[in-house]
């Protein structure tokens, strides 16, 4: 089974992170590199 084509990338804070800070935006690391949707195919591995 494959996950299919990449559609988007991003960052989302965990609920627990939001509970310990009032500024979840500051927890974001650098913006992930964009993904080439046409080429990357991923197989579920666990």
């Amino acid at each position: 089974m494959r996950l299919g084509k990449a559609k988007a990338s991003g960052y989302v804070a965990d609920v627990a992170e939001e509970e310990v800070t009032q500024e979840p935006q500051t927890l974001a690391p650098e913006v992930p590199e964009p993904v080439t949707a046409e080429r990357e195919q991923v197989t579920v591995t666990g």
Partner: protein
Amino acid sequence: MFGRTPRNERPERPFTGYKLARAVLSADGTRAGFAGLTLGADQIYGAVGEAACVWNTRHAPPRKWCGCGFYCLHELNDARALGCATENRPALLIEVAAAGRYIRYERGLRYSRQRVKVIRESQCGCGRPGTGLADGGTGVVGWRHLTPVCGRCAADRPAIVSVEDFAGLLEAPVRVAQTAAAAPEPPPADEPPIAVLSAEIALLHARLDEIQSRLDG
């Protein structure tokens, strides 16, 4: 731009996903966890985990052209389908909150932070719903793989723990769905449940030791 993802997303809430994982029990029987099925088979994670790349520790998962990171599927039925494969039959079907850095695919996610929310389903090798977890006969250093068993098959297997007890040994609360926590069927009358009782007693001793150590601390 051609060939690029349309945007970098910033959703407000973690994604809900479904995946398969092997249940594992620490060598001393006091801690529980999960193991991946293929690439992550040697990586043990708990109810809350951060992904690490097994090939290159210098980059943060999920890396674009690497296979690293946690995986999950958007749809429960896709995870069920994955569980039909012979090699995946001993796995638990779990529901997770996927967070951190992520790459979103058509059918699932690859991501960096995971919180296991629910143990949804397990199935005995005989086809009945799993009600307990027995020693699977395999493992990694420090951890034994557990295999779901039904009440009828439990008497033949060593080191039985209920799915509820397994969840209780995780370091953070994880709910057990009704379908994964059905009352165990009694073993056949001609087979004494000594193995089951021995395992329960061992588990009680481990918990008492843990409580004692906390009191001493």
